[in-house]
């Protein structure tokens, strides 16, 4: 694919052009590209753009700290790929303070890539803001999304888990999804208009294939959101498929309705599972009338096989 106008250029010129082009792709922020590479006998004079690139792999808090290295690096944190606002960060911080720091980081983010976004936050009344952060991280190709939502004050005062919208399960880059007090908001098929398709195509099209996700950690609220539901008077199964899921970690926390039937109804959508972890915590399975009436028989009828399954670990802490 030799393009004529490139003939006669020296190797170095071509490389420099390629480097420039590269800045606009993955290492987007290298807009001060120089070709003055380090002399190999001294590793102490890396060019600033290479240093910026290294610093972008630091967790955000560290990236901000190294801003005082020298004036050249005071804005390096705007390119951080690891936006960790986890429980360590949340500890002892007011929700207002938390919110403004996270928002500032997202607003000033200039890098083209975010690999990880961790958030430990009470999303109450800040749902739109949280959605904005999630959307930004997805736009920048986030691979690991770790959303640890909790509720301030008394736990489970009848509040709903955070509903994740379609951006999350349509994000192609996403490989690891960790969710605490979250549900995927999979709309039932009647709500999705699909004009002009035949019935068969429509049905297939409405299976939510969450193929990219390889590791999923969730609390039991997540399963409750995906278990079969009464829609229009009929018990309907949610149409989804985790085609590539290898590891599933279930935390039984605040489980109210979740029972073995919910778990198995979920697992059957994940044929490639290799490892299953279940933290039972203080979960106690109660064989109530709902189980006896609706679930017990269906549960006993299941015969599933997981060809790739290597181990299951259930633990009680």
């Amino acid at each position, binding site marked *: *694919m*030799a*393009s004529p106008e*490139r*003939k006669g*250029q020296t*190797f*170095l010129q*071509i*490389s420099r052009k*390629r*480097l420039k082009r*590269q800045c606009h792709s*993955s*290492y987007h922020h290298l807009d001060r590209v120089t*070709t003055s*590479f*380090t*002399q*190999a*006998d001294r*590793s*102490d*004079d*890396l*060019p600033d753009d*290479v*240093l910026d*690139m*290294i*610093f*972008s*792999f*630091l*967790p*955000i*808090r*560290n990236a*901000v*700290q*190294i*801003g*005082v*290295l*020298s*004036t*050249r*690096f*005071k804005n390096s944190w705007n390119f951080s790929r690891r936006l960790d606002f986890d429980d360590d960060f949340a500890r002892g*911080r007011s929700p207002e*303070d938390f919110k403004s*720091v996270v928002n500032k980081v997202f607003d000033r983010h200039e890098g083209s890539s975010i690999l990880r976004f961790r958030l430990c936050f009470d999303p109450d009344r800040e749902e739109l803001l949280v959605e904005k952060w999630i959307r930004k991280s997805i736009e920048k190709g986030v691979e690991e999304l770790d959303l640890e939502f909790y509720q301030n004050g008394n736990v489970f005062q009848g509040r709903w888990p955070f509903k994740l919208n379609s951006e999350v399960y349509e994000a192609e880059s996403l490989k690891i999804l960790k969710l605490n007090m979250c549900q995927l908001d999979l709309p039932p098929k009647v709500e999705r208009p699909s004009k002009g398709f035949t019935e068969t195509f429509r049905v297939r099209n409405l299976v939510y294939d969450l193929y990219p996700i390889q590791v999923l950690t969730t609390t039991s609220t997540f399963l409750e959101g995906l278990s079969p539901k009464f829609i229009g008077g009929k018990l309907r199964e949610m149409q989804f498929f985790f085609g590539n899921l290898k590891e599933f970690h279930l935390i039984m926390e605040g489980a109210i309705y979740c029972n073995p039937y919910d778990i198995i109804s979920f697992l059957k959508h994940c044929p490639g599972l290799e490892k299953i972890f279940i933290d039972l915590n203080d979960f106690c399975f109660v064989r109530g009338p709902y189980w006896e009436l609706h679930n017990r028989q269906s549960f006993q009828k299941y015969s599933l096989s997981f060809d790739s399954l290597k181990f299951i670990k259930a633990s009680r802490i």
Partner: protein
Amino acid sequence: MSSSTDSPTLTTETTQLSPQPDTETAKPTKKITLKSSDNQIFEVEESVAMEFATVKSFFEDSPSTDTVPLPNVTAKPLSQVIEFCKEQIKFKANPDEAQKKKYNAEFVTEKSDKDLVDMIPVANYLEIKDLLDVLNQAVADRIENKSVEYVRSFFGIDNDFTAEEEAALRREHAWAYEGVDED
């Protein structure tokens, strides 16, 4: 470290496995010669050389060349980069994510700080994205939670802030410095 990087049987295999769909001209020879800035000669399998996007585009532009000069690259980091790419070719032929992760982790763990830092401009120059990601993360891990002074001396960076400027910056981002012991 894997001991089989120089296995002759394997390199023959990988040559056959390397498809070159965009090369319009006659196929180059199976071995490609790379010349480092300190005039060391490296003969590598074509499939390995094509992992280097910069070398690949060089060949697309001048297919008749037999030696690629690498004026910015010295022998030591180059040999380590070649070693890494040879392994990646194997994983391309037989994908095994777990093994690949393990190899990549071992590759960086056993390297000195200087080796890692010296390889980064080389991987950047040769445009080997996988290696660049691995190296950047490895170096970032080594300076994570280290004091500013440590990072300055790690990379040889001179502080050009005045005391007032530095204090102002620390105040502006006070959240990042909470609970950090200075040096």
